[in-house]
């Protein structure tokens, strides 16, 4: 039990157990859809319980315990502190609606049996929760890999399609390599003492190049899971392949576990931070952000687009973390705190926004059986609920006030902006450039989201089949609304949220962003009111007020009469849905500006073409640039190694003989 009577850990353990139990129940009657849907609702309820537990634990001192499982000298250690609690809360908040949505989403006869999906899904949840409370390397790795495994099976739910299998394989492969790197990172952190508990690692003071080795192994390993450049390639493959709730869960929560791990290792387990780590993380993050958003702009598959946008957001978060490291290493705790707060806040935001959007795409997918943006459009008429909620998500992820995306962006910019001259002069020069890059990324994100929303929901349907699209079911709607409200809340009440995040700041870098006696719950002013301040609620209120006043005024003064007519469009007589901008068309300016970064195959129709067809395929440069060469190299080495194979016995004998001679020769 915890110090003041509340056993948060026991609570979390109970939640995990419940989830596993639900999963196993699902296995009992795998084909019974009604039963399985009920189970998903149960999972949602459990998630709510987790939220409550986590929020309580957030304000409590850390608690730890051990389980009677694990390796002989290394039983499973559990620990819940502010960091774990925050991410657990995130997991719960995002998961509750997603589970609710799933209960309405999964149909029978789509690849894997619903019951099996239910099991994998809840095992996935349980594994994520365990990752967040693990307090020794072994348990962490076990949970981590189980998470990867469960999500892999979820991704390959429809395993009959070769592309999906390929996506799953790529995902699991990169996840596994990343996991191995994390493992080696723990190998570094234990400092040769054979003590794999995190508490043991905290007490080790690594010398020489070891800390850097540890940090970069962690950056590599967790980057592979988070989708950091150049390990992002699995993301755009896996997310479209997976069922939408799973994509939401992976993108919204699983990527954050990687962030959690990075923070845990960097600020908690490592006893020091070096400024140049920060620089590298910052650069890497910003590159990732720009890359992700630019590629998102040219996607034509809505889930791919969202996947790339996830890469962007992860990039932003990592950049913030890098900034935090930089400041922390230069003993500027307050700024480090702001940067860290921005990172955590953005992680929270992204959990909500991206889940919301992925679920929306799920509804669209079910309503239209169509994933390609080129075949959608005008759905706002058919599915108003989804459209409304998706609008909130769109504005939020585009970083517009007064929604939540803007808050984290604002905080991060504050951190950038008040960089006092750091000892490393070129870093001081670098920071404004970084800020510029960040702002650019955010601006392009707005572009991308307008494309996303406009092409899917607005305009006229590009296919006749869209006429019989239908709005999402009741549970789906509820889930979407909850998430949308979540976005709104995070946007309007930042002070209260930051109050919670400050617990993490206090834990990791021993400082708080909000001054101790901060009473004004409206005013967000991290450093000083004179310096920078933001009151989203007021802004929101004013906009709403003005809008209402205007509407009322206009109604009063000029009886607003309104009649419908055909669209004018400069009086062009022929108007077909095909004349709207396509997704490709919308991406064109970006393609033009960032031409050098793409590998494009463009097919232009010839003037005499009977049925002219324009098509452009944009492929990831990193794929051709890094992964294909690696694969080729492996093949080459393999063929070299295979040379001694399949020859006559004489050759084998000779090989053994030479080995013997060599050993005798050098063995003396």
């Amino acid at each position, binding site marked *: 039990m915890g110090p003041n009577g509340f056993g948060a850990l026991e609570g979390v353990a109970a939640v995990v157990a419940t989830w596993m139990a639900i999963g196993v129940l699902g296995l009992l009657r795998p084909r019974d859809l009604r039963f399985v849907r009920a189970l998903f609702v149960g999972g949602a309820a459990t998630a709510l319980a987790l939220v409550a537990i986590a929020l309580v634990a957030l304000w409590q001192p850390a608690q730890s315990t051990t389980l009677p499982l694990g390796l002989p000298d290394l039983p499973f250690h559990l620990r819940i502190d502010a960091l774990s609690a925050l991410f657990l809360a995130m997991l719960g908040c995002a998961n509750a609606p997603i589970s609710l949505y799933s209960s309405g989403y999964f149909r029978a006869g789509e690849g894997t049996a619903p019951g099996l999906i239910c099991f994998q899904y809840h095992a996935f949840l349980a594994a994520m929760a365990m990752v967040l409370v693990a307090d020794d390397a072994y348990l962490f790795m076990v949970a981590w890999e189980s998470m990867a495994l469960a999500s892999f099976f979820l991704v390959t739910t429809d395993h009959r399609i070769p592309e999906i299998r390929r996506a799953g394989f790529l995902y699991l492969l990169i996840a596994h390599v990343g996991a191995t790197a994390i493992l080696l990172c723990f190998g570094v952190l234990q400092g040769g003492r054979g003590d794999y508990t995190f508490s043991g690692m905290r007490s080790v003071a690594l010398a020489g190049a070891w800390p850097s080795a540890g940090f970069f192994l962690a950056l590599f390993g967790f980057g592979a899971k988070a989708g950091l450049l150049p390990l992002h390639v699995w993301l755009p493959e896996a997310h479209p392949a997976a069922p939408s709730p799973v994509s939401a869960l992976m993108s919204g929560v699983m990527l954050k576990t990687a962030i959690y791990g990075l923070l845990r290792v960097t600020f908690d387990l490592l006893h020091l931070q070096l400024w140049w780590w920060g620089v590298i993380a910052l650069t890497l993050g910003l590159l990732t952000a720009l890359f992700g958003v630019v590629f998102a702009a040219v996607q034509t598959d809505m889930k791919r687009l969202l996947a790339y946008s996830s890469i962007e957001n992860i990039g932003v978060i990592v950049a913030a973390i890098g900034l935090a490291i930089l400041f922390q290493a230069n003993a500027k705790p307050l700024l480090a705190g702001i940067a860290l707060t921005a990172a955590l806040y953005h992680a929270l935001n992204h959990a909500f926004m991206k889940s919301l959007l992925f679920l929306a795409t799920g509804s669209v997918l079910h309503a239209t059986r169509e994933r390609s943006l080129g075949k959608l459009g005008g759905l706002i008429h058919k599915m108003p609920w989804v459209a409304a909620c998706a609008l909130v998500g769109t504005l939020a992820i585009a970083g517009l006030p007064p929604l939540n995306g803007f808050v984290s962006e604002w905080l991060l910019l504050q951190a950038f902006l008040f960089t006092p001259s750091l000892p490393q002069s070129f870093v001081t020069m670098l920071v404004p450039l970084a800020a510029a890059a960040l702002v650019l990324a955010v601006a392009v994100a707005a572009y991308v989201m307008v494309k996303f929303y406009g092409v899917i929901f607005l305009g006229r349907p590009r296919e006749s089949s869209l006429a019989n699209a239908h709005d999402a079911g009741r549970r789906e709607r509820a889930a979407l609304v909850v998430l949308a409200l979540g976005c709104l809340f995070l946007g309007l009440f930042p002070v209260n949220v930051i109050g919670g995040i400050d617990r993490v700041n206090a834990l990791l870098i021993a400082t708080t962003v909000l001054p101790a006696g901060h009473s004004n719950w409206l005013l967000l002013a991290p450093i000083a009111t004179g310096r920078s301040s933001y009151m989203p609620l007021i802004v929101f209120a004013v906009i709403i007020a003005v809008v209402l006043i205007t509407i009322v005024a206009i109604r009063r003064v000029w009886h607003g009469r309104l009649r419908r007519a055909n669209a004018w469009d400069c009086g062009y007589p022929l108007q077909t849905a095909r004349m709207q901008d396509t997704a490709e068309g919308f991406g064109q300016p970006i393609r033009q500006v960032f031409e050098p970064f793409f590998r494009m195959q463009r097919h232009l129709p010839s003037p005499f073409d009977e049925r002219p067809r324009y098509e452009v395929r944009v492929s990831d440069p990193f794929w051709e640039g890094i992964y294909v060469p690696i694969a080729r190299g492996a*093949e080459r080495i*393999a*063929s070299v190694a*295979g040379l001694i*194979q*399949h*020859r*006559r*016995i*004489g050759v084998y*004998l*000779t090989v053994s*003989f030479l080995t013997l*001679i060599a050993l*005798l*020769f050098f063995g*003396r």
Partner: protein
Amino acid sequence: MISTTPVGFQLINLFAAILLLLAFAMLAQRRVVSLIDLFVAQGFVLALSTAVVAYTTNQPHLYQSTALTLVLKVALLPWILHRLVRKLDVRWEFEGLINIPTTMLIGIVLVVFSFNLALPISQLASTVTRSTLGIALASIMLSFLMMITRRKAIPQVIGFLSMENGLFFAATSATYGMPMVVELGVALDVLVGMLILGVFFFQIREQFDSLDLAHFENVRDQPPR
């Protein structure tokens, strides 16, 4: 404990030399039948040397292993081999993988190598066994080389057996024989292995209608597509 008579260990060294000589001869020999004869000779010399060691170091159990050697390596195995050769009629070994002179040269290098490999050991060995360990090692190496260079199954087996002889010689001369139980086990294994091979050869013969190992070179590990 070792009561050495000069005659004794001169004899042993002589036998050792002969063994080495025989090993070289086997390396050079192409006719399967005479290969078997050489093997018999080797076995015989081995038996003699064992007997001498037994006598000079008065270790009675070595007499038993002498008898064992005589029965097994002079009588039984050669008989089996001869039968095989007659049954399968493989009298001629064609040109080996490497031509004879080269093989001999390599052999000499090996001998030198194993001698100075054994040298430090010989220093600290008791007198009788001074050089024999090196020679034993050399003849093992030579048999190994022979196995490498031969193409056909039976010569390889003979090479294998003569390697066994080298080991046996090492055991007897260097350490006055392993414990009896071990030697019995070794002998048993050799015998059983030989019998199995006997059966085996007919199988191979059925399948490949020749004992040329070139038939075994069909590719198992496919190259990558």
